[in-house]
């Protein structure tokens, strides 16, 4: 693994995770979650966990996001408060 890349990715992951839970716009939160999952997949590929990275990119960043947006299309987009 290459440490500078690893650190940069992990830093972005933390930032995106915090952004995803603080934003009031749920659509934005879901897209940020997708980005979070994708960066996580990058970290794992870079840690030589190729299969896990692949699965996370497909399931975490892909399908789960699709599920969440589908569910959001039937509910409310904005968080109160």
């Amino acid at each position: 693994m290459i440490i500078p890349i690893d650190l940069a990715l992990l830093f972005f992951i933390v930032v995106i995770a915090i952004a995803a839970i603080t934003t009031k716009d749920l659509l934005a939160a879901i897209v940020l979650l997708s980005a979070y999952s994708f960066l996580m997949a990058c970290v794992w590929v870079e840690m030589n966990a190729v299969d896990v990275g692949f699965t996370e990119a497909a399931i975490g960043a892909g399908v789960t996001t699709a599920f969440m947006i589908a569910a959001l299309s039937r509910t409310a987009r904005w968080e109160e408060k």
Partner: protein
Amino acid sequence: MIEWIAQHIVAKYNFWIAIVIMLTGLYATVAKGNLLKKLIGLTIFQTAIFLFYVSLSDVGTLSGLGLHYGTAPIVWEEGIHRGYMYVNPLPHVLMLTGIVVSAATTAVGLALVVRLYEEYGTLEEERIMEKEMEIDKRGT
């Protein structure tokens, strides 16, 4: 002190970052009032645990710098001759299972969220509790 930092903070930075993400996710899961937000927090929490597991499996971080290089656990004769080491495949296997389980939990949670929205017309926990109280009052 510097030695402690080098041993336990620098060499284990994955663990620290996993903790930070995990606690963020846990906080969101417990404290947020929005039902969908809770699920987002839950996903973050689960992913952080997977990060912890995958970090365990890796070979060739700071402690082995210059001595060992990890390679993906796919048989690769040439790489082994060049001094690469396979990383540990067991946590990968476990986490593949974990990722799919987490996606399944999220899916069931989303289905419940959709049903709750159809039932109560809101995703805020407070509103739902208010409406439940109203129903209770009307009932008695």
